């Protein structure tokens, strides 16, 4: 382990971790608040024998990812919300072709061109509908600069392992903030990729990477196979953090930057004698359903805190099958909730419980 900690922006830490994880191709297009990723890659990639391309558009960049991923090369693209909308066609093709890759979304406020301040309003797009068709991608939700690095490494590894696109789902606050970060010395294990199109030298059948199946039964079979794999992923890769949940009356839940704010509010609520706890999903797909069910033994109410109009809250309700009230609090459009606002919500719910 290299223990010396450096101060880095979340965007830079993610880029550095990607390189250390064996990412050899990066295709990007500038957009606030993620441009530091492209800038970092432009500087570093040529020095580590990698490729940096500033594409002519987000659509071009995701299709370059398709090409690089088809050869089994670890590759990545990054953007922010409007740019991810543009990439969604490519993401569906990547999923349909079972190609591993990493896509970074440092979210900003929407819809439309929206604004450039932090947001979490792309939850549905990341966790439910990354593009057309039946598919999922792995969705990692870092909540600190260290996790921007750690989850980037895990995203590359998991994408290869399950042959799936993986998304690092961050927001402008995490991308822009600096915190100390350490990079473990890793020599990434590169799994064999017998499916990769790397030239067959007339020694084997040629490989085809494709998402087109004109016979419905064949397409259905490929979807069944993929969803069977998703069940394995759910068992092996559902990640979350619990904070003070053991005896909690009120389960607050949030991911990413909101989770930091919610954690401050939970700590403040405990200081006032309110039994609040926090569940923080680190993967949004797969969603940590069991964590919410486990909390039912003490929980009387749930509160989802998001920088959106309320998206993840649906999954919380589904997880506990609406067996408790699930409240929502959030801001949208780039407005960041404050710990005192969240505390106020917790207090309100708590006084409702007493009645």
């Amino acid at each position, binding site marked *: 382990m290299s223990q010396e900690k450096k*101060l880095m922006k979340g965007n830079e830490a993610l880029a550095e971790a990607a390189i250390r994880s064996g990412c050899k191709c990066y295709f990007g297009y500038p957009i606030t608040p993620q441009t530091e990723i492209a800038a970092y890659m432009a500087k570093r990639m040529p020095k580590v024998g990698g490729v940096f391309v500033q594409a002519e558009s987000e659509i071009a960049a995701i299709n370059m990812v398709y090409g690089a991923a088809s050869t089994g090369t670890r590759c990545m693209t990054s953007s922010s919300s409007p740019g991810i909308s543009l990439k969604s066609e490519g993401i569906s093709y990547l999923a349909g072709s079972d190609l591993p890759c990493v896509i970074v979304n440092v979210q900003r406020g929407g819809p439309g061109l929206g604004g450039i301040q932090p947001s979490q309003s792309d939850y549905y797009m990341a966790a439910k509908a990354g593009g057309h068709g039946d598919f999922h991608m792995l969705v990692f939700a870092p909540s600190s600069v260290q996790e921007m690095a750690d989850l980037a490494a895990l995203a590359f590894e998991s994408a290869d392992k399950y042959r799936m696109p993986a998304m690092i789902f961050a927001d402008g606050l995490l991308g822009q903030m600096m*915190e100390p970060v350490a990079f473990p010395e890793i020599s990434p294990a590169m799994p064999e990729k017998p499916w990769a199109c790397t030239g067959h030298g007339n020694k084997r059948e040629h490989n085809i990477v494709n998402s087109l199946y004109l016979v419905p039964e064949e397409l259905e079979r490929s979807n069944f196979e993929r969803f069977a794999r998703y069940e394995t992923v759910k068992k092996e890769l559902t990640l979350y953090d619990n904070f003070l949940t053991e005896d909690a009356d009120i389960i607050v839940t949030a991911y990413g930057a909101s989770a*930091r704010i919610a954690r401050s509010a939970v700590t403040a609520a405990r200081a006032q004698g309110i039994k609040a706890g926090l569940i923080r999903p680190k993967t949004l797909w797969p969603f940590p359903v069991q964590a919410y069910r486990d909390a039912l033994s003490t929980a009387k109410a749930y509160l989802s805190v998001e920088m959106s109009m309320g998206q993840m809250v649906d999954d919380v309700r589904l997880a506990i099958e609406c067996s408790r009230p699930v409240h929502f609090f959030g801001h949208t459009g780039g407005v*960041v909730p404050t710990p005192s606002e969240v505390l106020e919500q917790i207090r309100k719910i708590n006084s409702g419980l007493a009645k």
Partner: protein
Amino acid sequence: MTSEILLAGFGGQGILFAGKVLAYCGLAAEREVSWLPSYGPEMRGGTCNCSVILSDEPIGAPTVYDPDILMAMNEPSFLKFSDKVKAGGKIFIDSTLVDSRSSRDDITVYEIPATQLAEENGLTGGANIILLGLIIAKTGIISDKDIEAAISKIVPPTKPKLIENNMKAISIGRNYGC
């Protein structure tokens, strides 16, 4: 202990840099640290601020709304943030550029003509670091050892003169009014 610090001024005054120096001081002292810039369609001469938190506990929200310490380097920043400082908090103002004064009696205000002192000492652009020197002297949140370590960490080794200038600016601020 947790110190929430807000630094604010014009773009180009080195607000983000001063915040970075503070954050590196926290890192040198092996404390928990966060640094968050305001970002937007910003430009030189526009307003700019940054939140720095130094703590012995893991840091939750990295945004500072009610600072313990405010460093205000222009009039608009002072007007915007002086009422938000926590009771018992401290405000450090560059009196060359800030004319208004706070009417609050539950905070302590330290004034230093930092921009003027920087000009007089051949340290143009160093007002931010002079203010940091005063903050060190009046709050004790940073040790002398850490500030030196932080500055030598941030300034590229190819520019030793800048380390010297920054340390000179620190000592002007620290010794001001002594």
